[in-house]
């Protein structure tokens, strides 16, 4: 089975002032990668004008593009409209579900979605108390369960999870400890560890670090643009 080259980046935060600037870095992407994953926060304010820039920067690439949205992409309460606009540009947008790509006969399964926060094992919010806290934790629990089901049902040769929020603390190193609960949740990693995957990529933590691993031994890469400092990371499976 051939090696798959996974390109990934998140937190590109595009708007009209950046039109064309990212695209010029993608010109020869097919020389470097077989697929491009976008790990959310593609816009700054989650407006349709910004989403149009995202669609134009990533449309008609010679390799498939799979994306999830981030918290910024939700800010204007238009996530469905943004996802539709991206899908019109040929980008597959995951919302706690899966897609399978055939790359020269190798099936690459990508499961993912925005993810959410709550914190990490032993130091996290619980589904207890006021309805506001229950809603916060419940949102993450439902997402993690949908990922677990999607991974369980996934029929693929290689399995990658694409998230915006971080499933582990390793890749947050450099961020203030106090904001960890807003950067991700261990429930996401627990779900992926339960069903197995070859790689998890996420964004969101601009001041974090690139490399980490789940408690179950799955490699995690923080591909937030400020962390990478390059147009995209490439990971070979």
């Amino acid at each position, binding site marked *: 089975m051939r090696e798959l080259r996974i390109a990934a980046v998140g937190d590109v935060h595009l708007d009209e*002032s950046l039109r064309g600037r990212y695209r010029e870095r993608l010109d020869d992407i097919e020389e470097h990668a077989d697929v491009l994953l976008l790990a959310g926060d593609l816009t*700054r304010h989650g407006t349709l004008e910004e989403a149009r820039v995202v669609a134009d920067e990533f449309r008609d690439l010679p390799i498939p593009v799979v994306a999830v949205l981030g918290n910024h992409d939700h800010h204007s309460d238009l996530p469905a409209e943004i996802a539709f606009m991206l899908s019109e540009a040929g980008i597959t947008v995951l919302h706690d579900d899966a897609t399978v790509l055939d790359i020269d006969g190798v099936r690459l399964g990508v499961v993912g979605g925005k993810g959410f926060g709550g914190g990490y094992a032993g130091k996290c919010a619980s589904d207890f108390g006021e309805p506001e806290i229950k809603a916060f934790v419940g949102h993450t629990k439902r997402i993690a369960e949908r990922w677990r089901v999607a991974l369980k049902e996934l029929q693929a040769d290689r399995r990658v999870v694409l998230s915006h929020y971080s499933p582990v603390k390793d890749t947050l190193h450099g961020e203030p400890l106090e904001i960890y609960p807003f950067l991700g949740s261990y429930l996401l990693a627990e779900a992926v560890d339960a069903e197995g995957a070859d790689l998890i990529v996420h964004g969101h933590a*601009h001041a974090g670090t690139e490399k980490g691993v789940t408690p179950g031994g799955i490699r995690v890469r923080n591909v937030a643009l400020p962390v990478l400092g390059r147009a995209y*990371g490439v990971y*070979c499976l």
Partner: protein
Amino acid sequence: MEAPQYVAARVQRALAEDERTHELGIRVDVRGEQLFLRGQVTGDERRALIADVAGEAAPGLTVRNEITVMEVRGPGEEEKL
């Protein structure tokens, strides 16, 4: 006099909540009469806008804009997992 911690917190909130910026990744420190901004953004225009919003949220302080503009490099070397 308002405690510097509250001033810094107000500026940080303004950067996150002001529709001109919605910027979550900037570190804000107040030292005496000076307001320090540190972090990375993708363009000069944005760097200047963040300083404007921060200055409005903390009138009377001198804004020290130490934000750097990030140059996006090519993809670089691949990693084999």
